[in-house]
């Protein structure tokens, strides 16, 4: 298989079509515009549907409609637009509907900037929209992984009847890297007996809804979500740990920041400092146990969280480590991207202070 150069946004769109996505609904917002642009051209060729919606709200509700009839559907946006989609995501959760949502994060709050950010971590991992729901959140750190994870996102969405978010940032969306198209065939069709695609032969109707007026019925539903989430947390946690064996310090970082931290780790390695990298790929469910196990190793003096926000995943890192080791933080925010040398400086400072 040959390596091809792909821009992140376009690779994500192409990967979705290859995976069997047959409906895309979106609205322009930088830095993800290449996704709807690519979809507008290529989705119809694949026999699918592209609609430029009047708003992000409409787009997520179009996804809701398509998914309710059993069609693999997706939307994409960037931070301010994802805020608008929260309503629809909550309804997807409430109606047990699969969907894939791409968030190419930019610096906030408000209109903020169009430069990369990671400050939607809480929004994505704590609770999508209102109510007691979750969605699976996947964080790629490069174009190859973004393309691979899009396929997985559709598979997971159908498997667990849940929205899945690919949480990346403007850097991943805009950059170009070589990738290999590993899977060539679309995902197998999944039987969706619940889909509102017309009555069954015996006249049985389908009613896709998130309304459960009786509180006890609704509680039972939310408890069923809880069971499903426990299963997802048990079976679907993904992460990468690099050089964490005998590491003096472990950096915890996701997405773009993880690869920047890796540059810093390489630089420090040349100086004889052993710095490992722990990179969660599923931000929800978060790999608590794996990180706890690594942090518990004798050599590890501290776990430094690095993010493009003021410390959001940092909370999960602290929950994983539970105070057993120091958990310092370094972040840039508002659209600023951390530099390897500044991360390296921070690591040196931490280790120097700990020696004192």
């Amino acid at each position, binding site marked *: 298989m040959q*390596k091809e*150069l792909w821009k992140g946004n376009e690779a994500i769109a192409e990967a979705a079509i290859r995976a069997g996505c047959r409906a895309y609904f979106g609205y322009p917002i*930088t*830095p993800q515009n290449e996704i709807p642009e690519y979809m507008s051209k290529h989705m119809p060729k694949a026999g699918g549907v592209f609609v430029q919606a009047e708003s992000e709200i409409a787009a997520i509700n179009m996804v809701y409609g398509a998914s309710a009839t059993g069609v693999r559907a997706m939307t994409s946006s960037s931070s301010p637009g994802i805020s608008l989609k929260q309503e629809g995501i909550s309804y997807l959760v409430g109606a047990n509907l699969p969907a894939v949502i791409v968030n190419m994060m930019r610096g906030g709050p408000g209109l903020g900037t*169009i*430069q990369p950010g990671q400050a939607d971590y809480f929004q994505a991992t704590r609770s999508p929209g209102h109510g007691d729901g979750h969605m699976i959140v996947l964080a790629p750190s490069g174009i190859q992984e973004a393309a691979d994870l899009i396929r997985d996102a559709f598979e997971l969405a159908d498997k667990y009847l849940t929205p899945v978010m690919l949480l990346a940032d*403007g*850097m991943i969306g*805009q*950059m*170009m*890297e*070589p990738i290999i198209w590993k899977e060539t065939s679309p995902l197998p069709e999944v039987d969706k007996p619940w889909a509102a695609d017309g009555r069954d032969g015996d006249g049985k109707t389908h009613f896709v809804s998130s309304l459960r007026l009786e509180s006890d019925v609704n509680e039972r539903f939310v408890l069923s979500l809880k069971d499903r989430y426990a299963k997802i947390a048990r079976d679907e946690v993904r992460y990468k740990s690099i050089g964490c064996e005998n590491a003096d310090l472990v950096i915890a970082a996701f997405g773009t920041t993880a*690869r*920047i*931290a*890796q*540059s*810093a780790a*390489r630089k420090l390695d040349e100086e004889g400092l052993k710095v490992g990298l722990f990179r969660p790929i599923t931000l929800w469910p978060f790999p608590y146990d794996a990180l706890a196990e690594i942090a518990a190793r004798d050599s590890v003096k501290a776990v430094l969280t690095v993010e493009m926000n003021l410390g959001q995943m940092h909370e999960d890192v602290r929950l994983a480590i539970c105070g057993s080791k120091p958990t310092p933080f370094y972040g840039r925010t508002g659209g600023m*991207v951390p*530099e*390897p*040398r500044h991360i390296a400086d921070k690591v040196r400072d931490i280790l120097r202070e700990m020696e004192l």
Partner: protein
Amino acid sequence: MTREMIIAGFGGQGVMAMGKTLIEAGLKEGYNVSWVPSYGPEMRGGTANCSVVISDEPIGSPVVTQPTELIAMNGPSLSRFEPLVEPGGLILVNSSQVENPSCRHDVRCYLVPCMEEAGKLGNFRVANMVMLGAYIKATGAVRMDTIKEMLGAIFYGPKAHLVALNIRALEAGAKYAE
């Protein structure tokens, strides 16, 4: 070895295309490559730039903040990025569009009159290829032949005559980096 470059200039000078051409050539020669454009309002008429990394190691940060190499296609780009270049690095300046170009003394510097050379070839649009020729000659980052092969794949049919023009542009630029 890891080359971390910034290529910068006015929108329309072919800055992004230069970066993409380089990473494509790098990929063909088996390197790890990445390209990140500046994006946003500055793309609409202001200065544009891209970060390019060509490396024999896996690429960590694709964002270049301390370039080992800078190509400045205009004055504002030179003033903005020149101070960031690593000591011992390389700067190539499009001297056609920079008044009184001067360079730091702790870097290698080449002045390339891209517009004049492109003008001599009868097509100002190949100014970026003139610069690319100079860059490849100065660094050996990729082989000139790789770029020439790629031109054949880009320009074919009614555009086939552009292959020769672009090759002449590359060679014209190379002379300034000898």
